[in-house]
């Protein structure tokens, strides 16, 4: 997709290329089918409203998968995502932008593998961090 990034190209504190996703209700239905998560809060507006919400909400694990895409887009074909943690702190509604962002917190070499630790998050249009987490990726290196 994009040019391969290498361990040497990245500095601690560096930002990860942002990814903006805007899931529709149709995408939530697709996700329900793909994930097997048929909780009605994600497709039945009356049910969602009975739970005190204004409408259906985006599945947390879909946002986690957006963060996965955000990271795999950035690390390229030769990179691998080793660890991703996500805490679901807020709500995303379909039709609204979800902006995936992150920063490199640490780079280190262990057993010949070149690791980056990152902090990652997803924001809603109000600027609230609805999902926050940490990631560890392995990048190729130039020798």
């Amino acid at each position, binding site marked *: *997709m994009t040019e391969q990034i290498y361990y040497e190209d990245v500095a601690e504190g560096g930002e990860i290329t942002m990814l903006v*996703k805007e*899931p529709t209700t149709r*995408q939530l239905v*697709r*996700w329900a*089918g*793909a*994930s*097997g*998560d*048929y*909780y009605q*809060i994600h497709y039945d507006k009356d049910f969602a409203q009975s*739970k*005190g*919400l204004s409408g259906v909400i985006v599945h*947390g*694990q*879909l946002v*986690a*998968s*957006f963060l*996965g*895409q955000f*990271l*795999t*887009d950035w690390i390229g*074909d030769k990179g*691998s*995502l*080793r*660890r*991703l*943690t*996500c*805490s*679901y702190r807020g709500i995303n509604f379909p039709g609204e932008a979800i902006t995936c962002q992150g920063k490199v917190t640490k780079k280190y070499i262990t057993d010949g593998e070149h690791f980056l630790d990152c902090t990652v998050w997803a924001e809603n249009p109000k600027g609230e961090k609805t999902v926050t987490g940490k990631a560890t990726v392995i990048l190729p290196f130039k020798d």
Partner: protein
Amino acid sequence: MMENSMISEEYKNRVGEEWEVGVYDIEKGMIRQFVQAVADPNPRWQNEAPPGFILTVGGEQFGQLLGKVFPAGLLHGSTELECYQPVRAGDKIKVTVKLADIRERLSARTAFVTFDITYINQGGEMVARCRQKMVGYDSGGQA
């Protein structure tokens, strides 16, 4: 509602127990369905599945277990995913879930439940593992 109905009585004393969720043949079509649901256009995902895909393997059966554990309602607290090797079409993945921890906060009418899920391939290798933390609440509480 009983004061402690956030978790069904049946599961309260089963911390440490492990269940086999199922054994799944990973097909190219499942990977395609996943990347369409995420709307991830990366051409890398043909035979190789994106890291987040594994979260959906056995997802429907895990959801059925959650429905039994939390009779009233639940929220997703967090996901901690570790990937050790890529999952590919043709793999046969055995999914096992352990009820790792239950912490009830009766004053807040919530219960924090930790599930540890492991994913083992046809060669007996662990390809990924995931810790899912769920928050159960009773009908007196609000999401």
